[in-house]
């Protein structure tokens, strides 16, 4: 009897790790539900995150911010001959890119991913009525030559440095979507199977496919039987949407979700505090990202049109202290608009270090003298600004308070005003209705050219339908020329000095005050291995097949 007990105990002990390994469902918590499941309609982070489990783009930037092939065989480059500069009938230079879809790639109903899917993606993308938001990307492709069932050559009407970043060029399953699109392109955005019949297996070509959707609640996935890459560890995956981050935190503790996505989860300070309390169960990883927190200055304001004023405002703030005290040193202070992890980053750019003496000198020079702790101008007017930002973002509110105090030390009066995000982004910023300062963030991809942010032609106005993102109203012909030249230079070695010039010019002109680059805070249980946060727009689940479950 005693032997039996010992045997049973030993067996139980031996089986314990097996139970850990046998977890077949992973539940991921995120804070937003996608507005559509169509890969090309609308652009939102929640959609990119969910779709990265079930679709593979042709190319993506990996965790080391290198461009890699996911659905293609070989990354086309000028060096390997798969990309070739060509002369267009107009005499301008264009580029021909030959790309082959990965051998054996199939949609989850067993139909091979083919050139026809790429062609349909192009047809839909360039059609004026299809509702695709980034149509310009597809319209740049003037023709597609089908070489064989898996290979095509794209003819692009211009040479750009990121010619081979094909991640935004979406493949659509022609055997499902072609008929729906051709029936009525103008109604396609309502008729697409991605939203009408989301659980159709043939819509998905990633390691998983969508099997159930409860709008606003969750998306359930299961393994794609036709996935020909590494077999993912979990049979099922559930992406649960819990918008309130306090509830999300409680739910992970209660076991309702296994992990919280850094891309769309808790704020950094929430995650850090969580990590301190629950480090025995969970891993909290912070990854520097491409989210650039900054303050746009409206250059139409005569005060801010003076470069001395902009520099003084910038030098009067201590970004290092903000990052140290508010974010436990986990955010990277910004020295320009390019993050240090980006290959385009130039460490030689003259910094914008905290220099209160220089700030004071510049303010004096601009005619604003310190009197009773407040700067007043020649006309006796107090030097004051309104700082607008989004309401409901605790970190941003904290940063705004610190900035206000730091400027106050220079005698500058700053009033902080919070607006709901939909008003702030829907009108105040996009229609340039902020008079002085607006604090928010940019999200970009590695080596993403800030053309729409810095080019003088991109200033939003009534005339251009408020398109463009040059909200500061920044105009500098030298910057315009640099942006144009950089965009058309395919050789990175030649582009790099251009990027450096751009960063120097940006720091000289200072249309915006750089603050810091945000970090994503990912939380996962100690048993989960292989998650590699990227910190950019291509989210970590693009490599979900390498996630495993095992002993901590």
């Amino acid at each position, binding site marked *: 009897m005693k032997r039996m007990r010992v045997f049973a105990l030993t067996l139980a002990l031996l089986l314990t790790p097996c139970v850990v390994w046998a977890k077949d469902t992973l539940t991921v918590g995120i804070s937003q539900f996608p507005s559509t499941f169509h890969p090309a309609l609308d652009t939102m982070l929640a959609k990119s995150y969910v779709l990265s489990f079930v679709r593979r783009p042709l190319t993506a930037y990996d965790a080391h911010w290198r461009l890699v092939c996911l659905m293609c065989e070989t990354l086309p480059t000028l060096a390997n001959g798969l990309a070739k500069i060509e002369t267009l009938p107009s005499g301008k230079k264009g580029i021909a890119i030959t790309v082959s879809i990965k051998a054996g790639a199939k949609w989850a109903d067993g139909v091979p991913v083919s050139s026809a899917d790429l062609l349909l993606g192009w047809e839909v993308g360039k059609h004026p009525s299809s509702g695709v*938001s980034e149509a310009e990307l597809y319209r740049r492709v003037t023709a597609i030559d089908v070489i064989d069932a898996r290979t095509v050559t794209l003819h692009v009407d211009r040479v750009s440095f990121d010619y081979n970043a094909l991640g935004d060029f979406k493949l659509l399953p022609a055997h499902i979507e072609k008929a729906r699109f051709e029936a009525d392109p103008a109604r396609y955005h309502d008729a697409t199977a991605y939203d009408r019949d989301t659980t159709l297996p043939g819509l998905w070509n990633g390691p998983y496919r969508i099997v159930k959707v409860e709008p606003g609640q969750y998306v359930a996935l299961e393994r794609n039987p036709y996935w020909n890459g590494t077999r993912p560890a979990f049979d099922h995956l*559930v992406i649960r949407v819990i918008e309130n981050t306090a509830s999300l935190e409680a*739910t992970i*503790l209660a*076991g*309702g979700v296994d992990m919280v996505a850094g891309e769309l989860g808790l704020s950094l300070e929430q995650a850090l505090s969580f990590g301190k309390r629950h480090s025995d169960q969970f891993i909290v990883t912070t990854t520097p990202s491409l989210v650039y927190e900054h303050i746009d200055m409206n250059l139409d304001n005569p005060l801010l049109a003076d470069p001395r004023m902009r520099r003084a405002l910038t030098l009067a703030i201590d970004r290092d202290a903000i990052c140290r005290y508010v974010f436990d040193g986990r955010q990277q202070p910004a020295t320009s608009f390019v993050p240090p992890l980006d290959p385009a980053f130039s460490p030689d750019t003259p910094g914008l270090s905290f220099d209160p003496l220089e700030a004071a000198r510049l303010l004096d020079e601009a005619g604003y003298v310190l009197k009773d702790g407040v700067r007043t101008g020649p006309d006796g007017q107090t030097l004051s600004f309104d700082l607008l930002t989004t309401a409901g973002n605790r970190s941003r509110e904290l940063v705004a308070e610190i900035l206000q105090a730091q400027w106050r030390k220079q005698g500058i009066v700053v009033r902080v005003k919070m607006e709901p995000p939909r008003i702030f*982004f829907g009108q105040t910023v*996009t229609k340039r209705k902020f008079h002085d300062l607006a604090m928010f963030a940019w999200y970009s991809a590695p080596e993403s050219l800030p053309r729409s942010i810095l080019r003088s032609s991109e200033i939003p106005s009534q005339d251009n339908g408020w*398109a463009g993102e040059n909200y500061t109203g920044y105009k500098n012909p030298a910057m315009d020329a640099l942006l144009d030249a950089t965009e058309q230079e395919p050789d990175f070695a030649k582009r790099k000095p251009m990027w450096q010039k751009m960063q120097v010019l940006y720091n000289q002109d200072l249309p915006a005050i750089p603050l810091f680059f945000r970090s994503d805070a990912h939380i996962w249980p100690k048993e989960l291995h292989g998650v590699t946060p990227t910190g950019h727009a291509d989210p970590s689940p693009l490599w979900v097949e390498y996630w495993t479950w095992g002993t901590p």
Partner: protein
Amino acid sequence: MAVMSVVVFMLMGAMPGDPIDLMISGNPHLTPADVVRLKELYGIGRPWPIRWWDWVGQLVQGQLGYSRLFAREVGWIVLPALGHTALLAAAAMLMALGIGLPLGIIAGAKPGSLWDRAIAALSYLMLSLPTFWLGLMLIALFSVWLDWLPASGSTDLLSPHEGGLADRLRHLLLPAATLGVGGAGQYIRHMRAAMIAQSQEPYLRTARAKGCSPWRVIVTHLVRNALLPVVTIAALEAGALMSGALVTETVFAWPGLGRLSYEAIMGNDYNLALSALLLATLLTVLASALADLAYGLLDPRIKSS
């Protein structure tokens, strides 16, 4: 309802920013031509009366329209949400009445007693607890610490029991308690006040003079009459529960109508917001009608008139 639809359309039209404006702020690659094209495609920028008229046209044909936020027919989104909110509101109401009425009766039966004072303190506590805080505290206690009940959602996803009665009840308990506690506090106060007011009425003296036991006087005569004003409050409360469930639904990720209406308004999803708000109005009207029926049951004079 027609007036309500016009008001909602007008107010939403007056809100700054539209979905394409928001899209521009998140996507640097959108060109001016894209902006014009997308606004035309989604019918944004047309005056609200025209959009309202189109919506009425759809409604007449039995269609609630298409939700831009969820890329689905509105009916597919709004009806399940309505079911969830109705369930939550009903459970919260039952809980509030179940706690509030007996405690109000006990307090009102002997005003000034120790029981009365203790119940009064409890009712004030219930009324003053912020819903958001209470919800999180209940989650911390029953989900995180004791591990008895789920912290959020309406079912156990992908479990063999998903959607079963026991599963639903387990998920319902904490949100219903959170939503019901404030109501219970109110019912205690109202029931107590009604009991005290009714206890001065001459019919009670008559009942006592006729030799009715104190228990029978309270249950048969006093409580029945004291319930009449409470029913009015409950009918009003039912409407408030439908619209006020937003905070509870947000804390518990409960897929209800309150949260859906909020998202639809903030996301400028006219069709969805209108349907959700009009359904909430309809439910409030229905609750009032039910209250009228309850009056008839409690007071035969109303029924006969």
